[in-house]
């Protein structure tokens, strides 16, 4: 049985900086996995490697047992890289998928700094994301031959907005929504691509404790409703410890721990690097 997503020795190097160093991990079907670590630890870089924004310098990424990205043997980075497992993947065929192909496979993501389509309404934002699963071509779209599909897309969008409690904002500009709702909308937009694995990049950033609590219930709910697996980067430890099945910890690009929330909270290296000691202990 293959893991849903598997990273093997993934390394991402920018010139002399190793942003992610020899990171291996896996996510199983139906899990909520969190990636934590101090600022600049390489969490978002790891995300970007998975979603095809970056091409990993070394290592391999598999989705449902299928390789979706391996290192670049003829790349410039490769020659600089001399770290662990340096030539392990050197002879592999280059796979360099673009982010849209990754999304097509069923991995959708949100962004750390919200990236909604500025000129569009809430409704159009979600409707645009439905384009991926549409079967129409440009001609049938222009001449409205595929109007039935268009109608179905619109109905799906309305349903999704209702499910996400965003229906009352339907015709408002996406960027005029309150911050928490914008995050919700970004998740709704990601869900419109019909993903199996959802990557959330700091979904609780900028939220107050109350909203954070709601968010953890919300993530559980969408996970059940759309039978998703969730992989998220988060700084709110309450949220992480509450909903994660497993946690990975990165520090300066290197993985320092892996385990259940309870294990992570006890791990001395994690406490030293990131969690710190609570003041009232």
């Amino acid at each position, binding site marked *: 049985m293959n893991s849903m997503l598997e990273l093997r020795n993934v390394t991402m190097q920018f010139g002399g900086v190793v942003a992610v160093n020899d990171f291996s991990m896996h996510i199983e079907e139906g899990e909520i996995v969190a990636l934590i670590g101090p600022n600049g630890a390489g969490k978002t870089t790891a995300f970007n490697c998975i*979603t095809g*924004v970056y091409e990993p310098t070394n290592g391999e990424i598999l989705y449902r047992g299928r390789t979706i990205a391996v290192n670049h043997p003829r790349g410039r980075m490769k020659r600089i890289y001399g770290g662990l497992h340096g030539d392990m993947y050197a002879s592999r065929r280059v796979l360099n998928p*673009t*982010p*849209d*192909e990754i*999304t*097509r496979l069923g991995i*959708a*993501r949100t*962004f750390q700094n919200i*990236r*909604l*389509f*500025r*000129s*569009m309404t809430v409704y*159009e934002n979600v*409707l*645009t*994301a*439905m*384009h*991926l699963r*549409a079967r*129409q071509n*440009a001609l049938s*779209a*222009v*001449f*409205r031959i595929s109007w039935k599909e*268009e109608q179905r*897309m619109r109905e799906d969008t309305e349903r999704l907005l209702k499910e996400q409690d965003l229906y009352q904002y339907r015709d408002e500009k996406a960027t005029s929504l309150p911050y928490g709702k914008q995050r919700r909308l970004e998740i709704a*937009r*990601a869900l*419109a*691509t019909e993903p199996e694995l959802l990557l959330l990049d700091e979904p609780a950033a900028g939220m107050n404790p109350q909203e954070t609590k709601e968010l953890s219930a919300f993530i559980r709910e969408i996970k059940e409703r759309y039978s998703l697996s969730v992989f998220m980067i988060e700084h709110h430890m309450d949220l992480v410890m509450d909903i994660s099945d497993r946690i990975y910890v990165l520090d300066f690009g290197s993985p320092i721990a892996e385990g259940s929330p309870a294990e992570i909270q006890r791990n001395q290296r994690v406490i030293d690097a990131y969690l710190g000691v609570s003041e009232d202990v």
Partner: protein
Amino acid sequence: MDSAYRKRLIAIWIGIAAVYLAVLLLDMTLRPTSMLLTVLKKGAIYSLVAVSMNLLNGFTGLFSLGQAGFMLIGAYTYAILTMPGDVKTSESVYKYYECFITFDTGVFIGLVAAGLMAALFAFLIGWPVLRLKSDYLAIATLGFAEIIRAIFQWDVLGPVTNGANLLRSYIDLTRVTLPFTDIPFPPTLFVFMVSGICILIIVLLINSSYGRAFKAIRDDETAAEAMGINLFRSKELSFVISSFFAGISGALLAMFQYTVQAQQFKSMMTYEILLIVVIGGIGSISGSCIASFLYITLSEWWLRGLDMGTFLGISAPSLFRSGFRKLVFSVIIMVIVLFFSRGIMGDKELSIPRMRAAFARAAKRMRKEAAG
């Protein structure tokens, strides 16, 4: 579809029908050489090319300056295809070359072929060029447009393009007939119909799923890509479609002018079109149409006196000389760019509720002024 929406749609169609009827009436009553008809024809042609440029620059966010090149391809394709075979084989047009293409086609095939040829060139050029962003893309497309112009004037291609010499005797606007008859088609109406259909197709495209993908790319490339929109394929599609319609408008321009020569499709022409798009509002179809009629009316008609010696009844031949019009125009452009940088329409479309609201605002202001 609610009834208010349907009502508005009917109102729009009635409005469009009224415009076409008015054009037909003008076509029947005015002399064919009258200034109004000339302006209407050229305005409609420029509307089409401005809208096609807006599709690229305003809706997909690709700053491309290749429009004149694609118009040239369209104009030449149309002229060469519809020129009667016996004209081509005689020496009246192809004086220095043996014409290579000896067959000729009708207007419809000529127009479609003009679009397709421009689209084909766009497809090939887009492959390398669309990987560039913003200003770099503008420079590259501008360069390609110039290269196209040079190639069409190239001596070696003379048997096809007649070198740097002009093409004429093809089916121009006065020689278009109603299908299957010899009755001449009202020329202004013809231009309006072709432009209108093309613009309608562009509007349908923009309001389709593909149009939304284009707008998504304009708003945020990274997010669009993460939502599964293939950047390169979408940009290429937008570029090809835009060029297709630029090609058709080039063909219409050729029909309008009676003669066509590669020399006239300079980068200046692209700037003219860009100006129309900016004045109309980047991202507004109706803005582009309004601006192109406005621009053509000003430059061809109302400001013509500035070049001819008499303007607004003032006769000053020493000041109002050839070239003065351009000077005045530049000042107008500067004022527009400085004070109305969002153009006439911004990124909004002309609509009845919006017009009503604007009138209400204006009336309120006037009442206030009258009271105060």
